[in-house]
């Protein structure tokens, strides 16, 4: 069975490409698509599939490693890390507040009611904690480009 990751880069989003790649890997890890020990596509493979500059992939992987999401094994590639980086409660608080503030600003601009915002957040929280699958063997992923 071939495992494929779907990556999508939006040039018009105003979000740097490496950030978009980081966010997607984090999303896959949070959602359980990527599990500990899984191998990510190589830098060359990902750069070609998405037609992005290889240095952008390097940057995304480096930042992900710094965040403790993945680890680079010399000569072997990038793997999903076993342990998330130990961050302080304070760092957690700052990061969470920043995201929450952004959500609130957007919800307000879109005129979404507060109860609806709470409901959506709860649904998303449930979505990232899926039941573990039977297949727990680490897998190697290739990439499917998406526009």
């Amino acid at each position, binding site marked *: 069975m071939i495992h494929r990751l779907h990556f999508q*880069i939006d*040039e*018009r*989003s*105003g*979000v*740097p*490409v*490496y*950030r978009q790649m980081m966010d997607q890997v984090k999303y896959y890890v949070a959602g359980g698509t990527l599990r500990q020990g899984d191998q990510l596509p190589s*830098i*060359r493979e990902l*750069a*070609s599939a*998405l*037609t*992005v*500059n*290889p*240095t*952008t992939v390097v940057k995304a992987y480096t930042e992900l490693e710094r965040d403790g999401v993945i680890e680079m094994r010399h000569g072997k590639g990038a793997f999903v890390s076993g342990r998330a980086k130990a961050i302080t409660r304070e760092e957690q608080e700052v990061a969470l507040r920043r995201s929450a503030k952004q959500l609130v600003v957007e919800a307000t*601009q879109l005129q979404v009611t507060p109860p609806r915002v709470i409901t959506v957040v709860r649904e998303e929280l449930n979505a990232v904690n899926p039941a573990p699958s039977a297949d727990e063997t680490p897998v190697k992923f290739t990439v499917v480009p998406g526009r």
Partner: protein
Amino acid sequence: MAAVIETRSLTKSFGRDVVAVSALDLSIAPGAVYGLIGRNGAGKTTTLRLLMGLLRADSGSARVLGCDFWEASPAIRQRVAYVSQGHLAPDWMALEDLDRYGGHFFDRWDSAHARFLARRWELPWKRPIGKLSGGNQRLAALAMALSARPEVLILDEPAAGLDPIARRALLVCLTEVLSDGDGATILLSTHLLSDLERLASHVGIMDRGRLVAEGAVEDWQRTMRRVQVVFDGTKPPEGISIPGAIRTQVLGPVMTALARVDDDAQLDGLRQIPNARVFVFPLSLEELFVEFFDRPAPAAGWNPGTDSGRSGTGVEVAPHKSVGRGVATAADPCGGDSDVEPVRAGRETSGVSGPPGEG
């Protein structure tokens, strides 16, 4: 790091009235993918041709790998590949002929790679170039340029005339060039800004022969925003401005700015104004470009980026002592020991270019 491509006060006019390139300062670091954008006639093609030594500058300097290509030796020239907008080679030549030809002039010529690219792009190996479609002629030119395994790749509108599939093939190929071995430095002119957004590390905007803006793509994506503030009433209150604004437009009660937003908190002051509504939109390179040309041209030297991609001091090259074109002393890195009357390797494979002053 020393710049791989550098121009200083580069100036070129055609006739009395047409200043194609005007006091251009460009500095491109090793490994960069530099996208030169600008409207037609902005001077992009002329700049590339000056760098390749196909045109002689009126004043200022243009150097690639530290050398002035107007008089560089074949040894230096073969480290640089150039694909012009024009024709590749004499129409009667086939890729097979060009491959053999390339082997004679480029030390690092990779015939296997030429064949590989021809197969991958489904280019007929034995059919004369003149009988290929326009798109395939461009791909053939690119295949030849890439087979020279150049350190520097200079591409003039490489994707022009390519269908979406061929364009993607080209982009994939460029990412491979960047992934392979030592990597390469790429300078390309283009109108396809979304491609640049993925691939380029730096972008320079040319207007009327000048570099009017330059920056790291990532930096622009992170910070350049359109900020719109809608005030109550018929016009904004006196003395209000948008922090970080590069240019501002007021239409009734709506103030819109192209702004550099390093930190969203810089807009908090605006948000605290009673009844003012603040909207922040990201800008793609294309929107930024349009924004840039949509209004009267800004003063030269406008630069939204702090990280401009300039490589600092640039490269110092010993005074030229060459006697003639392509002949140089041993101490001169730009010369060579070739006694062949300068076969312009870079030029020959790149073919004839479009008319000067175009692009």
